[in-house]
């Protein structure tokens, strides 16, 4: 609002500049054509006289110059006609038109051009004020810039580095994140969390591949007390990447078993187990079948029928481990825990000689909460 008042005042002042001289009553004297010249020539004659008096020019030069200026003066005086008396009616009309032009051009141009180009909605943003203003928690870029500015001045602020690291991770600036966590470890000393964060950043930087650097950091984190769950999860993934499912399972299982019942990590660990088991997708009715089944109950019945048929077929001809994993998972999804355990027991018995299959089955059992924590 203050801005608009200032702009309005400026426009007013500009209009005053353009209009006030028109309102002033002028002496009617017309600007004659030659009076300027005559004045200049008279000044020149005076100057010549002074120069001559000071001895700067000789008598003869002075005389010659005087003659010449006098000639010019005469010519100019002749040219100076008496200015025609102002036609006052026409003059008044002209001034009215001029004032009208000014009053139209000023606002039209200024509002038109400023309206098209101006950004009255954007306030000034001097840097110092922005850095001191209360933090806008929603503006991540702002916060990062503040912390960066602070770290630029004081690069030994370990807390700063550990704060900015996770934000870099969220922004996808993994290089910067890894650098920040490394600085935090250098300044604050190693800890499970910091090493795990560094490892995570290094993994993200390498597009999900656990590099040697990352592995070293993660191992340090996993060996710390208390052991870092995040590090264990990444190491488990690394093991799985290398084809060592059993090793991965062994890393995660103790954490799962020991975690308190209200631990926020349980959910994540279950997801890890499921990922490790890599079960095939749940059976879903085909679109045609779904068309027939209009209500939710009808659809459930349809799925239940499909799962029952899968169970019967596997009981009859054995099937492969993937199908068994699918069956166990489907039974659980349908809320039929007893049947799920039954299917799991049959599968374990059937694949007793296959450690890979055993690992996957155990991982799925853990992931679905069928085993492990005294379930």
């Amino acid at each position, binding site marked *: 609002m203050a801005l608009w008042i*200032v702009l309005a005042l400026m426009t007013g002042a500009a209009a005053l500049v353009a209009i006030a001289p028109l309102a002033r009553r002028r002496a009617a004297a017309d600007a004659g054509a030659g009076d300027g010249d005559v004045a200049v020539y008279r000044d020149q004659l005076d100057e010549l006289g002074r120069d001559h008096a000071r001895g700067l020019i000789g008598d003869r*030069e002075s005389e010659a110059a005087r003659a010449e200026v006098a000639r010019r003066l005469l010519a100019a005086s002749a040219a100076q006609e008496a200015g025609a008396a102002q036609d006052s009616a026409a003059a008044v009309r002209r001034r009215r038109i001029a004032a009208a032009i000014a009053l139209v051009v000023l606002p039209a141009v200024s509002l038109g051009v400023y309206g098209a180009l101006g950004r009255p909605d954007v306030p000034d943003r001097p840097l110092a004020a922005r850095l001191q203003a209360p933090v806008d928690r929603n503006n991540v870029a702002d916060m990062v810039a503040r912390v960066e500015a602070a770290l630029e001045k004081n690069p030994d602020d370990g807390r700063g580095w550990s704060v900015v690291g996770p934000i870099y991770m969220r922004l996808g600036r993994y290089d910067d994140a890894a650098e920040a966590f490394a600085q935090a470890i250098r300044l604050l000393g190693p800890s499970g969390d910091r090493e795990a964060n560094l490892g995570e950043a290094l993994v993200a930087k390498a597009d999900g591949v656990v590099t040697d650097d990352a592995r070293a950091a993660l191992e340090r984190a996993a060996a710390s007390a208390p052991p870092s769950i995040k590090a264990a999860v990444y190491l488990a993934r690394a093991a799985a990447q290398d084809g060592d499912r059993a090793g991965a399972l062994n890393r995660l299982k103790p954490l799962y078993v020991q975690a308190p019942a209200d631990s926020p990590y349980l959910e994540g660990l279950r997801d890890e187990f499921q990922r490790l088991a890599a079960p095939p997708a749940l059976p879903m009715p085909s679109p045609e079948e779904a068309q027939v089944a209009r209500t939710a109950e009808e659809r459930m019945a349809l799925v239940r029928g499909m799962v029952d048929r899968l169970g019967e077929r596997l009981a009859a001809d054995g099937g492969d481990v993937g199908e068994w994993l699918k069956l166990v998972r489907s039974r659980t999804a349908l809320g039929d825990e007893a049947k799920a355990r039954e299917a799991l027991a049959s599968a374990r018995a059937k694949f007793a000689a296959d450690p890979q299959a055993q690992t996957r089955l155990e991982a799925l059992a853990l992931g679905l909460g069928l085993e492990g924590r005294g379930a």
Partner: protein
Amino acid sequence: MIAEIGHYALVLALALALLQSVLPVWGARARDAALMGLASPLALGQFALVALSFAALTHAYVTSDFSLQNVIENSHSAKPLIYKISGVWGNHEGSLLLWVLILTLFGALVAAFGRNLPDRLKADVLGVQGMIGVAFLLFVLLTSNPFTRVDPSPLEGQDLNPLLQDPGLAIHPPLLYIGYVGFSMAFSFAVAALIEGKVDAAWARWVRPWTLMAWLFLTLGIAMGSYWAYYELGWGGFWFWDPVENASLMPWLSGTALLHSAVVMEKRDALKVWTILLALLTFALSLLGTFLVRSGVLTSVHAFAVDPARGVAILIILAVFVGGSLALYAIRAPALKQGGIFAPVSREGALVLNNLFLTAATAAVFVGTLYPLALEAATGEKISVGPPFFNNTFGPLMLPIMLVMPFAPLLAWKRGDATRAARGMVGAVGVAVLATVLVAGFVQGGPTLAALGVGLALFAIVGAFAEVMERTKLFRAPLAESFRRAKGLPSSSWGGAFAHAGMGVTLLGVVAATAWSSEVVLAMRPGEQIDFAGRQIAFQGVEQRPGPNYRTTAAELVVREGGVEVARLEPARRLYTARKMDLTESSIATFGVSQLYAAMGEARGDGKTALRISYKPLVTLIWLGSIVMAFGGLLSLADRRLRVGAPRKAARPSPAMQPAE
């Protein structure tokens, strides 16, 4: 809010400029004092608004307000304050705002101090200034707006081009622009005279000081730019015939011609039509300079604005103003009354000769600069016109100017006496011949022509004071008498002498630095020492230093003469972190007027550091000469007397009288 006030002030200034270009001119036609009276308040108001706008932009730079696109692109919060301020005009948008600011400042000066100008002339002049203002304000607002906002705003800027973070570049553009834009005054006066169809006596009285002032700033601006290129670009050259340098040299040459023909016009009322044409051409060349630099048609360090849309806009401005004024000239010039008459051998005659050669030199530079562009536009073929072309065209044209320059002030107005003038030159010729012989005989190396060059330069320097000597009767009258006469001399006589001598000083520097420079390029290990130009230079080692927005790697050299340390050189390379740009910082030690110049090369793997060391005798005279020239201009400007050329009474009627032009 301040940024938006600045933006709005610029828009309002455009509105006032529109009114200023229409109402006073209409008033002058209708002979209406009230309408003509509008010119001054409008010009003052326009200046106030543009100054407000410029202040608002400067405020945004100083407070690092990164909500302005222009500030983001050319500033950085860690930059030193002086470069935050110079950054305002260190870029395309800001420099044009500075252009407009100076334009309106000159308009305001005419308004404030032009009380003794005839009303109609004043109204017309300010009207034409208003038109130039409209064109450039529109250009700034529509294609190069420094107040473009960015929302949301980043928290850091991209920094100013490191080449421009230099004290030289902080003052070079303002000096140059005052020169360029100063010629707009001569242009406006010329167009006003053409509109009116007559040249008032007040016309010449006003045009000469404006031209002189523009010329003096342009001289300093060009010298500053040349010195900057010398120490900043790192290879120690002082003039490259770069198109952008030529762009500033052309208005300087034609401005110099204008200055001299305006003298003829003021004193003798002659050469009117020619002076008007020169005024038009000089401003046209200033606009052309702006076009060349701003449009990006040239690829050089100056062309930091590469944007064809802007180029086309400037080309339109150029076409309208140059085409329009020349058309007006073609229609109205025949109506102008011819002025006084003079003999071929006279002060006027010598000044006509000066004009002839200066315009020819301007044409040579013009062709050399624009021919490659025209050829590329027409056929797509790329050629480059280099120093040999300019040395072979520009050089020979300047030679007669240097030869005739000392004579002219000794000639009387209207009809002069050549033998008498020649007698006054005996001393200067003697000094010149002596110097040539001494240099040719005793100085080793360098081309033989260089000795003649030194002779010519000394001839110009000594000859420049021949008129003063003559008028003070030095050596012919008692010293006290001479001193009294010297004090009584008008300062414009001294001004002319100094300006002409400055030319000679610059020439001396150019000749010496070109002919007798020596240079070594070598790779040195810390502790090594070389003998160079009569001195021992020891390389101490390389040091890393942090800077505000850069990191420096500096080589340390100690210069000794006969075992005594006389100077330290620290050539360096700077890495500007924000732009990841690597710059050479040369280091210079001055001995008298000669300089030792060192630059550091790329780092080498083998522990050695590449160094280039040159010795440039008398090199500073090049720039000192320009300062002497500008000082002469200042003296002349201080002389606010009215001038009338006093002719000598003819002993007998001269048969060779002829009309001017």
